[in-house]
């Protein structure tokens, strides 16, 4: 499905010494898998996502999605960002339809799909509302619906719930797993919350900083569907400790 090989990214800086943001990142993701990427800030996880989304140029390496190389934004991808980034002058339905409009697809067909997505994210009846009338959690649900509207193969999510309060965040995680199991999408989700990374993932990619590289890939063998109670279980705790060990060794909080 997705194959990332020997991906490198260096940023030039004003001081002259280039920053090595990503160093030899290689990763294989199979169809329908839920992969989370966790690491402290500066480990290059957002850089990785931006390169996958095609909005940032890589320095070297290859990325294949279904065998096609990715060098620019692709219609096969849907992206959810840290902020909902809705357009305040468009109502909710028009916001969800932005990718359809950009890609010149048939509006009539996809506005029916938009209605279905709205009920999937629990926002039935909000079509004609404007973003400022919605709470942060509702806005991010719209962001998820927008990323799914053109039926992409891969959903990229960059700390999608980072700006939400803890309780809304738990709720959104449950809903996301629901959406994922219904839509059968492949998901790559970036987070700085270890608990979130363990809770959602089939596999966790643990990254470490300077230079940003993969420290370990952990297979999470927890039964699905998962409920919030699982967080208190010993198995869950063991996974969390295993991830944290990578950051603890450097005396870092994450």
């Amino acid at each position, binding site marked *: 499905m997705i194959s990332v090989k020997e991906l490198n990214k260096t940023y030039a800086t004003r001081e002259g010494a280039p920053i090595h943001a990503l160093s030899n990142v290689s990763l294989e993701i199979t169809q329908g898998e839920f992969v989370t990427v966790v690491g402290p800030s500066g480990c290059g996880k957002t850089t990785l996502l*931006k390169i996958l*989304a*095609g*909005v940032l140029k890589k320095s070297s390496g290859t990325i294949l999605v279904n065998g096609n190389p990715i060098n*620019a*934004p*692709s*219609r096969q*991808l849907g*992206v959810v*960002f840290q*902020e909902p*980034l809705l*357009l*305040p*002058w468009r109502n909710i339905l028009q916001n969800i339809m*932005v*990718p359809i*409009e*950009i*890609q010149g697809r048939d509006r009539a067909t996809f506005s029916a799909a938009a209605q279905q997505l709205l009920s999937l994210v629990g926002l039935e009846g909000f079509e004609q509302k*404007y973003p*400022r009338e919605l709470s942060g959690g509702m806005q991010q649900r719209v962001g998820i619906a927008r990323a799914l509207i*053109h039926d992409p193969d891969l959903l990229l999510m960059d700390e999608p719930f980072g700006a939400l309060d803890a309780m809304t965040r738990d709720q959104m995680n449950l809903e996301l797993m629901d959406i994922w199991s219904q839509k059968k999408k492949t998901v790559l989700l970036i987070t700085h919350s270890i608990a979130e990374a363990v809770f959602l993932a089939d596999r966790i990619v643990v990254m470490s900083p300077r230079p940003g590289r993969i420290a370990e890939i952990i297979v999470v063998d927890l039964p699905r569907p998962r409920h919030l109670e699982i967080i208190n279980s010993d198995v869950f705790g063991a996974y969390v400790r295993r991830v944290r060990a990578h950051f603890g060794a450097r005396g870092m909080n994450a």
Partner: protein
Amino acid sequence: MTDGFSTGPKADSALVATLKHRLEIGVSLLLFVVLVVGWEAIVWIFSIPSIVLPTPTAIVKALWVNLNTGRFYYHVGVTLWEILAGFAIGTVMGLVVGISIGQWKILENTIYPYVVGFQTVPKVAIAPLIIIWFGYGLASKIVITALIVFFPVCVSCIAGMHAAPQQQIDMLRSFTATRWQIFRIFKLQTALPYIFAGLDVAAVLAVIGAIVGEFIGSQGGLGYILLQRNFSMDTAGSFAIVIVLSLIGIVLHQMVNILRRYIVFWMEPEETLESESA
């Protein structure tokens, strides 16, 4: 119980806000009356000659006479036409140049320095040249007005185009948007509040542009009769024209504001926020 507690103070604060607002309007009107009466009194007490400072009553009389003269409306029409045509042309040019510079980096590097450089030239100083080039008729006044209007619109448009956050642009790019689509879907709307701020400044400047043009050389318009009245020492008549000119300015400003509220509707503060901050 809880309802009683929560709505009670809220209703009170709304009432206080309304009363405060009315009081402010009352004080504002009172201030106007005091100023006018004081003006009238000072002219009487110190027997200031009406050539130097006419009384408000004399100004209102002069204005009344003007408003009942057919010829006066011809001059109002001339000046209005110069203002509106100049405003329209200047705005369109400002938007075209501003959007182009905002959209293409190469234009920003090549053309923008000249725009800034030309902006520092006082337009009033080159007005006599424009009269030479475009004659004593309407055209020269429209050109002067358009030039004066051009810069605030153009500069605020460029600022607005630059105000578009990179995150949003990345979001649209990730959905495979082209530069043109990013402009149409996002950058233009982001620039609109800035453009309207520029239009508001330009509306006031447009009146100045037309009058300056008429001062330098014209055969009609409010600036033309203002000069005539100055020469014939008709000070009350001059004041009457100044009042008409400020009215034109106020109406233009209000029209821009109404248009802004209608077009940039998403920038309007929520009603609840408004009443809380009042």
